[in-house]
Structures are given as structure tokens and as C-alpha cells.
């Protein structure tokens, strides 16, 4: 006869409520792990997805994620000329916030080196890749923008042609993808007045030095669009992504590029490491600490619940001892209930998590490895928690029945 199950059967309502309480507590522990995983996954998502072998960034910076990086757009041409480089792409990424139909949309705009890169690497769930040089965008589903939706960014109107799922930036903002040129147009968009003031300022500066005074054409150029002035290059990019030729030595290529005085080079692994150890490290440690505290709190609460359940049965335990029950009978009664509570609590945590976690504003990523680890932790705290009850039960004397 399984006394633990008999007790549960008789006090079913109370047991279920207790299990729900423990389950919700374990769901928080599970959620903490999932938030941490989501944080790291979001942080490394782009690095993993773009699948570049090398990241070329501004000299002595840890860009483009950990800090700002700006390198000239023509750096891509130089990099492409290095032996062992198969292909290159410019990388431009910036975050904007816009009001859309009465709600705030915060999104990270990612530039694609169209036409080489049309977004084939993106996990499209609807629509298509970018097929024209301007004014098309692929948006993450979490932004709530439907296919065909038109949206004004800068001075242009963009149409949503494709949708992705779970594409978020290192800071957790949902991503949109446009061509590199469009991305820069959005990033460096200025009002007409600001453009006019800048042109007037350039004209004023040009008229103050000799070539400007003697060459009227210079003054005309200075008062015109920036693109008409050879001295002013195109806007900088954040990084250049490098794909190595199969069989080429990545270290050798990296060492060649790193010898240039204006850039630094990171491998994809190094870039991931920079993200995890730099950007998310504090959050990671904070979550780990909080998770540890939650586990301790769960263990204490479980111990107190089991202790209370044991106290409720202390007279019955004394009766069992008087009848000659071995200690193992009593230990089994408490331990099995602890394990049952832990197991049911864990199941409730998992099921409730499936409903609750998708509502969280940031991604909660539950992976198999974490589930097994939590199962082990639950098993451990169930056993530990039962020790307090077992200790109390062992102190009960058969004579207490008579008393």
C-alpha cells in the first residue's frame, strides 16, 4: 500500500493547490533560465545568421555591437582584394523608434548589400526576399506589420514584402531589413532645412579660402548636394563582413587585414564572445543570481510545505510506529510525497510556461538542456526539502499516541 498516494487521494484539493503553487514557483525558475537563453540567443542571433568568417571594424573598437564602429564604405573594396577573401558585404545597423497607428514601434534597421545579399539567409515565414534596390522591407512578425503594409521612414515609403520570426537585435528590438542604401538613407535622413543650412555653411567656408574665391565652380559645388563633392565620401558603414575562400587560411587573411592602420578584425567566434562577455554579461550574471535565489527560495518553501504536511501527519506517524512500522515506511511516505510534489510542480511549470512565456516582451527560450538541468534541480530540492520532514518524523515516539 502506498501511503503517500493514499494521503494525496484523501487530501487531493490541498495537494493540487500546493502543487500549483510550487509549479508556478518552478515556472519562474524555468523562465529565468529561458530569459537568459533568449538574451544570449538574441545577442548572437545576427552573428550566427549572417555567417561571416571575419568582421572588419573600426580600429581599436569592439564594434559594431559592443560599441560604435565607423569605417569608410570603400573599405569593402580593399578587403575584397585580399587573397583568400571570397566575398564581402557592408554591415549597417541602427535602431529607430516610430509611432505607427497610435503605438510605438522600436526596430533595428539592418542594411543588406543588395543585390548580392537579398536576404536569402533570413528565416522567412511569409512573403519574399528583397527584389528591388529601394523601398522594400522585410520585417519581423513581432512588429505586427502585415505583408503589403506601407510605412514612411525618412523621406521614403517602404513596403513590407517579407516576414521573419524571432529576428531580434542584440538589445532585443525586432528587426527590419532594407537595402544598404535605404538603410543609410534612413539613418542619415535630415530635414530640408538642415540640408539647406549645411549647404550654406559649406558655401560660406568655401568662400573663405583662396580656391573658393578664385574658382566660382567650387562655390557652386559646395552649395549643391553632398554627392556632387568628390572630397565628401559616401556615408561610413559599421563593419565589413568577410567570407573566406574554402581552403584559405582565415588567420592569414585576418592578419593581413589587421595590419592596416584603420581597421580591426574579429572572427565570428570572437564577435560572439564580445557580445556575450561584454553586452550581456551583467544581465547574464544578474539573471543567474536571481535564478539561484529563486531555487533556494523554492527549496525553502518546498521544505516548509513538506514539513507542514508531515506535522499534519505526526500523530499518524506515531500510530504507524506503535504498530511496528519500520522507519523506511515513514521515510517513503514523506519522500514519495516530496518527489510527487516536485514532479507535478515541474509538469505544471512546463505547461504553464508554454502559455505564459510567449506573452513576455523579450524572448524566453526554453532548451532541452535547461529542462533536464531543472528536472535535476527539482529532484535535488525535493529530496533536500523532505529531509526536514523526515527529521521531524524520526523524532516522533510511539508513546506520543498514548500521551
Amino acid at each position, binding site marked *: *500500500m502506498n*501511503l503517500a498516494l*493514499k*494521503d494525496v*487521494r*484523501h*487530501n487531493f484539493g490541498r495537494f493540487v493547490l500546493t502543487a500549483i503553487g510550487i509549479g508556478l514557483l518552478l515556472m519562474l525558475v524555468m523562465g529565468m533560465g529561458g530569459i537568459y537563453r533568449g538574451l544570449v540567443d538574441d545577442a548572437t542571433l545576427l552573428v550566427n545568421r549572417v555567417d561571416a568568417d571575419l568582421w572588419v571594424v573600426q580600429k581599436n573598437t569592439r564594434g559594431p555591437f559592443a560599441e560604435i564602429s565607423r569605417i569608410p564604405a570603400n573599405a569593402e573594396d580593399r578587403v575584397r582584394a585580399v587573397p583568400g577573401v571570397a566575398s564581402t558585404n557592408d554591415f549597417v545597423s541602427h535602431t529607430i523608434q516610430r509611432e505607427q497607428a497610435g503605438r510605438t514601434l522600436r526596430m533595428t534597421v539592418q542594411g543588406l548589400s543588395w543585390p548580392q545579399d537579398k536576404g536569402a539567409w533570413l528565416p522567412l515565414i511569409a512573403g519574399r526576399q528583397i527584389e528591388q534596390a529601394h523601398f522594400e522591407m522585410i520585417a519581423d512578425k513581432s512588429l505586427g506589420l502585415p505583408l503589403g503594409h506601407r510605412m514612411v521612414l525618412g523621406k521614403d515609403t517602404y513596403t513590407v514584402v517579407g516576414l521573419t520570426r524571432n529576428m531580434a537585435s542584440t538589445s532585443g528590438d525586432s528587426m527590419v531589413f532594407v537595402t544598404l542604401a535605404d538603410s543609410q538613407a534612413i539613418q542619415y535622413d535630415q530635414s530640408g532645412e538642415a540640408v539647406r543650412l549645411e549647404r550654406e555653411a559649406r558655401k560660406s567656408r568655401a568662400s573663405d579660402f583662396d580656391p573658393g574665391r578664385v574658382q566660382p565652380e567650387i562655390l557652386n559645388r559646395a552649395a549643391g548636394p553632398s554627392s556632387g563633392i568628390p572630397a565628401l565620401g559616401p556615408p561610413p558603414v559599421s563593419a565589413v563582413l568577410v567570407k573566406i575562400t574554402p581552403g584559405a587560411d582565415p588567420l592569414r587573411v585576418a592578419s593581413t587585414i589587421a595590419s592596416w592602420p584603420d581597421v580591426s578584425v574579429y572572427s565570428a567566434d570572437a564577435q560572439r564572445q564580445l557580445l556575450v562577455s561584454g553586452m550581456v554579461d551583467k544581465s547574464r550574471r544578474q539573471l543567474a543570481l536571481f535564478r539561484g535565489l529563486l531555487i533556494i527560495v523554492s527549496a525553502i518553501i518546498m521544505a516548509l510545505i513538506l514539513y507542514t504536511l508531515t506535522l499534519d*501527519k505526526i*500523530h*499518524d506517524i506515531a*500510530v*504507524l*510506529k*506503535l*504498530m*511496528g*512500522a*519500520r522507519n523506511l*515506511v515513514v521515510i517513503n511516505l514523506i519522500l514519495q510525497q516530496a518527489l510527487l510534489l516536485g514532479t507535478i510542480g515541474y509538469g505544471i511549470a512546463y505547461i504553464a510556461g508554454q502559455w505564459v512565456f510567449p506573452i513576455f516582451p523579450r524572448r524566453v527560450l526554453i532548451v532541452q538542456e535547461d529542462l533536464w538541468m531543472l528536472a535535476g534541480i527539482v529532484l535535488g530540492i525535493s529530496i533536500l526539502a523532505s529531509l526536514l520532514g523526515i527529521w521531524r518524523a524520526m523524532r516522533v*515516539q*510511539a*508513546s506520543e*499516541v*498514548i500521551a
Partner: protein
Amino acid sequence: MVSAPDTRVVEAFGLTKVYGSGNTEVRALRGIDLSLSRGEVIALLGPSGAGKSTLLTIIGLVNPPTSGRIMMAGRTVVEDGQFAVDVRSFRRQHMGFVFQKANLIPFLTARENVQVAMEINGHSPRLAKRRATELLDYLGVANRADYYPSTLSGGEQQRVAVARALANQPSLILADEPTAALDSVRGRQVMELFRKVAHERQAGVIVVTHDHRALDVFDRALEMEDGLILANPAATAPITAAEVDLRNTSGPSNQDRSKPS
């Protein structure tokens, strides 16, 4: 020549029990000798503090005596404050307990309460269940087998408690004021139940009681006072005078049994 079988269930020699020490010392038992045979039912009478329950817990191997010796099943089980057997194992094999409160386990049904006593003694669940049903039937509460204790009347609970005490076919049943919570009719029924099981199952029964109305049910009544059994308990007088049908048909008279063997 074949020797007569030993019918004694328990023999106690010079039992003493002292609680505390110095100024707080209480001598609960002052040298008790007691012998109980199979099929015999004896009552322990006396005022509160006389030492009845203490004697019961010592014979039940729940507490050790300070000094003295107890023999059961032909061997010494406790001597001079030391148990000579695994007390829990000995209790589950040889003893049954009934108390003022039935002390049934609330999360088990009546049948399971009886069944669990057998299972912890190593019987298979199937056999235990069958025998538990038989015992409840024997005690007239088979129709309440699947009910929880909280739904049973006090008398029904006590019958289930008696069934549980009988579960492992004990040679000794110890009852501490088993009728105190019952009305006189049900109290007498329970006392007669002890008489019945003692005679039919050849168990020795010791009952601590204040209820003088049912003394005719017992083979002997021992009056206790200040930790001693009185030499000529007046309480035995009404028993010998009573002509109870059950007693006439179930063995030797109280006077016979009271004689030293």
C-alpha cells in the same frame, strides 16, 4: 512424558518505573509482578496517577522500565531498562493496541487501516486486503469497510481499531480506556468484543479502564494504586459474584485464574 504447553502470554517481574530525579523524582511503578495467559482478559483499575497507563506502555514495549524483567513468547524481551528485542518488530508480530481514541489513520479507509497493519508486517497487499475484510466482517463493520474514519461513528471506529489490533493475530492486546469515549451500551459491546476475541483467538487482553459497569466481562480485575497492584482488590468481588453466560462457557473462573500458578 509430554510437558504441558506454556499458555502464558506475558510475565512481568518486579517492574519499576521512575521519572525524573532528585526533588522531581516520581516513582510511577514500584515493583509490579504480573502474569497473563492466553484467552484471559484482565482489567487494570485505579485512580488517575496510579500507574495503569505506564504499566501498559511498558508491557507494550513502548517505554522501558527502570528495572525489572518482562518475558513474552517464551523469552526475555526487556530487563533492567534494556530492550532485548527489536521492539517495533516484536510489537508488529505479537501485539495489538486499542486506545480511548481509535487513532485510525484519517487518510485510509476502514479496510486500509486494518490492511496497513498487516502490510507493514510483511503480508502481501492481496492477502492483507482479504484478511482485513474478514476481520471487519468478524467485528460487524464490513459494510463500512470503504468509508473513511471521519464518516464512522465512535463505536464503529473502535471496532475498526480492534480489527486493526487483531490484524497480525497478536498474542497480546493492550487497551487503554477503549470505552471512555463511548456510551454505556457501546462501551459494553466493545468490552464484550475483547472477551470474544480473547477466547476465540486465544489472545491475552489487558484493558485499562475506569468503567466499573462492565467488570463482569473480565476474568480478573487488578486494582492499582501508587504504582502497586493491590493484593486483594475489592474490584474482583463483583466479578466472582456475577453469573455471566459468556464466562460460564468460556473457561476457568476468575478465582481459579487468580490463583498463583
